[in-house]
């Protein structure tokens, strides 16, 4: 085992150790007054009740799919025998990351509010370091999973055999599917929960009953706070866990394929390089966490600067340090590899900045939506849709430019198909670069809901104005960092999608080998015969050869039909999740109305609402409603493969990735812009609070809620899950297809 590999488990242990340190540090803080502790306990128990229910459902799905993979691997011999176990551990680690992050967040909110009673800096430190627990746990568990599986598999396969290294890396990819399935349920379920509670609380509490936001008299207010945790913390954590391990594993697999003929030593270095970069980024993220601090009385710009110092500091450090590490590792194409990494970092920052530009009330797009509110809700909706559509341009161009440059640098400064493997490896490394600082960027994401909940706790507990001003400042900052974080999540999904297309073809090769091993010839769609002793010939096929033999060209109806289906799925998936939020919110509205009607004293504050019942309604609705979109996402690649074979699946993945990425950016940015256009008006523009403009903007914000927090983020996982699943069931697709 190369010595550089050991930095991966070391970084994993360091990340988990630092997370434990920050967690214990946070737990030593006081939860404040009995009222603050009581509110936090309500939120915590609601969040745990939700996760318990969700994990039951996910557990059943994971075990069922594991059983199916066992049959495919051990009975039908269509798959690698390690797949079922790799799949299961991916799901378990993803769930564990979400659980730890959410548990930390629910302990941290009251403590953040209480720390804000002391000072702004104290509040920021508690909130951010609690968010860092989530970030570090995600990368720590991700690296641990990768390190353990790489170590175990290399006990059974030789690292000196290029063929074995390919098998190891493609096998490891399958635990990405376990993580993807778990994260799909976490994102979709969490997204439905949080928006059902949010919309229900707003429609009855704020609009019908006239109760302010985060008022303890609103029966859905605790569910709303629980939703912030299960959606924005557990869901986001599971999503990025899957992205993180996905990009590292896809890059490793691409490295194994690209340098297959360069000798086992060079190939192994190319395989380990993404893992080492991930580990290096993790160590430097820990350093970045300590750089985040601010002064008392800091403005929002200064607060943002404090977080930026940590994130940008880590990014610069990794850009510099990776030169040394890659040099010492003697990776092939040193400077091209490094430049691809840097391109990924810059692409992530560009997408994040674009998201901020299109969703922050400090900039034109959101302000223009505010202006449109003067003429009513219809023009707010039109303006939000228009700005959201425009917002897709910069991220897509960033991805196009970043992908082209990464390919160019990765392939050794050429743009030809001769070096396609190395070029795709460069794209994979760009995705690794983008997520290399995930430890700290995810900390800024998880910080948002913690600060939001802290603000809610401060309101409900009636803390003094100066404390609420501090929690408001922390919360406002969280809105911006959340938009940036979503940009990274979506951007990495796009790059990962491209990288996984190549990995899919590698897995297809292995699937064909399984066919040959069962004593059968294999015939490509172009008529080329692979005899049972043709495994070596098969291995020498380039990606372009594979595309040619499978007739993956645009005039092949199977490809085009697959693309149309992939594009359609992105819309249907979004439609299902949007409608799910509508139905679940309707149930919440009925329940809140019922409580107001049947529990005397809620409005007078003499009786406590039944918070738990609202949490239970959101929980049940989320579990029920997430099934259909999830089944659709899981079934689509299998069905497409069984009908149209490999060309159909490639079309499906391409159509899904292209449409899903664009639609996801559109929905996330539209929703964010509608939300902040409302805030812009509430700050005293276009009539301010209570004006007709405000009412119109509130409608825009309500429409945008499921856009930005349910459907938009869930599309990332749809794209990644379909790719991962296509890889896992590639053997089935090769063996069984109608056309």
């Amino acid at each position: 085992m190369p010595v550089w590999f050991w930095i991966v488990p070391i970084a994993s242990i360091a990340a988990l150790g630092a997370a434990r340190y920050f967690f214990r540090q946070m737990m030593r803080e006081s939860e404040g007054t009995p009222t603050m502790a009581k509110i936090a306990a309500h939120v915590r128990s609601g969040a745990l009740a939700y996760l318990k229910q969700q994990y039951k459902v996910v557990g059943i799905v994971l075990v069922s799919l594991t059983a199916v993979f066992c049959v495919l691997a051990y009975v039908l011999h269509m798959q690698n025998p390690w797949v079922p176990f790799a799949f299961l551990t991916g799901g378990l680690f993803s769930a564990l990351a979400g659980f730890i992050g959410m548990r930390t967040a629910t302990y941290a909110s009251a403590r953040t509010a209480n720390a804000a009673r002391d000072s702004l800096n104290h509040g920021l430190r508690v909130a951010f370091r609690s968010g860092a627990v989530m970030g570090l746990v995600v990368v720590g568990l991700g690296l641990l999973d990768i390190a353990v599986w790489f170590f175990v598999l290399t006990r059974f396969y030789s690292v000196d055999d290029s063929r074995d290294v390919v098998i190891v890396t493609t096998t490891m990819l399958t635990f990405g599917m376990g993580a993807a399935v778990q994260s799909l349920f976490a994102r979709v379920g969490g997204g439905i929960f949080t928006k059902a509670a949010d919309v229900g609380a707003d429609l009855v509490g704020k609009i019908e009953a006239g109760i302010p936001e985060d008022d303890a008299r609103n029966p859905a207010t605790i569910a709303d706070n629980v939703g912030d945790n299960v959606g924005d913390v557990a869901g986001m954590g599971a999503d990025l866990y899957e992205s993180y391990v996905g990009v590292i594993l896809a890059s490793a697999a691409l490295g194994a394929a690209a340098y297959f003929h360069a000798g086992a030593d060079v190939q192994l270095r190319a395989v380990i390089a993404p893992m080492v970069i991930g580990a290096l980024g993790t160590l430097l993220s820990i350093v970045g966490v300590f750089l985040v601090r601010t002064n008392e009385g800091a403005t929002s710009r200064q607060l943002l600067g404090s977080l930026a110092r940590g994130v940008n500091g880590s990014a610069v450090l990794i850009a510099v340090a990776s030169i040394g590490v890659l040099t010492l590792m003697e990776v092939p194409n040193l400077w091209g590899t490094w430049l691809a990494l840097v391109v990924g970092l810059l692409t992530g920052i560009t997408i994040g900045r674009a998201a901020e530009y299109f969703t922050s009330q400090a900039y034109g797009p959101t302000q223009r939506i505010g202006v449109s509110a003067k003429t009513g809700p219809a023009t707010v909706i039109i303006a939000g849709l228009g700005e959201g559509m425009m917002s897709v341009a910069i991220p897509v161009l960033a991805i196009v430019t970043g992908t082209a440059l990464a390919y160019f640098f990765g392939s050794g400064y050429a743009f030809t198909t001769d070096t396609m493997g190395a070029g795709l490896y460069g794209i994979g490394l760009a995705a690794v670069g983008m997520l290399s600082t995930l430890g700290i960027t995810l900390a800024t994401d998880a910080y948002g809901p913690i600060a939001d909940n802290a603000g809610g706790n401060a309101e409900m507990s009636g803390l003094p104005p100066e404390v609420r001003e501090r929690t408001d400042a922390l919360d406002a900052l969280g809105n911006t960092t959340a938009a940036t974080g979503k940009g990274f999540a979506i951007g990495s999904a796009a790059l990962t999608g491209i990288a996984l297309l190549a990995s899919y073809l590698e897995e297809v090769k292995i699937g064909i080998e399984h066919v040959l091993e069962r004593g059968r010839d294999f015939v490509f769609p172009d008529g080329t015969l692979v005899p049972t002793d043709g495994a070596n010939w098969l291995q020498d096929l380039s990606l372009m050869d594979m595309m040619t033999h499978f007739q993956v060209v645009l005039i092949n109806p199977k490809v085009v039909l697959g693309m149309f289906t992939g594009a359609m799925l992105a819309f249907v998936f979004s439609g299902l999740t949007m409608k799910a939020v509508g139905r679940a919110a309707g149930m919440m509205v009925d329940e809140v109305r019922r409580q107001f009607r049947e529990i005397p004293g809620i409005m007078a504050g003499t009786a406590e609402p039944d918070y738990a019942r609202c949490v239970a309604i959101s929980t049940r609705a989320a579990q029920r409603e997430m099934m259909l979109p999830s089944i659709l996402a899981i079934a689509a690649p299998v069905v497409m493969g069984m009908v149209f074979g490999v060309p159909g699946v490639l079309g499906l993945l391409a159509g899904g990735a292209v449409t899903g990425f664009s639609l996801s950016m559109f929905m996330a940015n539209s929703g964010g812009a509608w939300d902040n256009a409302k805030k812009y008006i509430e700050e005293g523009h276009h009539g301010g609070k209570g004006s007709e403009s405000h009412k119109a903007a509130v409608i825009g914000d309500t429409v945008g809620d499921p856009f930005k927090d349910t459907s938009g983020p869930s599309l990332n996982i749809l794209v990644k899950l379909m790719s991962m699943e296509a890889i896992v069931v590639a053997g089935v697709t090769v063996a069984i297809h109608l056309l």
Partner: protein
Amino acid sequence: MTTHVYLSLIPEALVASMLDPADFGLYYAIGSAKRARGQAIFFSVNRDLLSSTDFELDDLDARCAPHVDGRPKMSVYLSIYRVLEKVPLDALTALHLATDDGRVLTLAPAPYVADGEDRTHLYQEFCPTTPRIVTQLDPAEFTTFITNTKQAIHVPRIVFAELTLGALKSDPDSTDVENLPYPNIGHLRDCLRQLAAGPDKPTKTVMRQMTQEVLFRTIRNGFFVGDATGIASFPMPSHDTLEREHLAWWRSAQSTFGH
């Protein structure tokens, strides 16, 4: 249990209740169950100063008695229609503002102090009529003007509040109107321009009646009630004071959707 007498402005009515002002405001805003909501503005009335010829008060305590199960009597309507004119100014001991979710802010009376410098005002009338007007008259002058029986257009007594005009006060064409939540700002500008151009016309109607709930954040100086004999003032605390000392009410007042 004490029997309180309240003069409600929306709608105009004299009501007896065993609830104190905070509970009465809550009850009046949201009812006995949360099926409806609406702001309430009402005065506490010193019943000893009411005329027995105008109101039947002799058996008030008998009519406003607890229910058989001990619950306090929420409301007994003593009179509706032209009530304000029958309640003497000095009987109005406090003004209560209930938000639409039932939070109550109590304003105590204070001596009226004229602001001689200020010559442009936006008034929202609450009782007995509800137009919104702009005028060059300060509150005392306006009260005298509108209760002058020698004019064709007059009322016997009036309750109104001054609303903020922001930068429009000094310049009707100002573009700095960002935080003014009034509908049809263009018409308001026209009214202010006409007011400035025609000194012979002291008032100009901006809206014939209230079309939405009061946005309490727009109240400037406070509420006024007066007639030909004088004026009583109920000053509104500053936004900073409301934020610090009446947070629950202030948050509720700001979250109104102005139905």
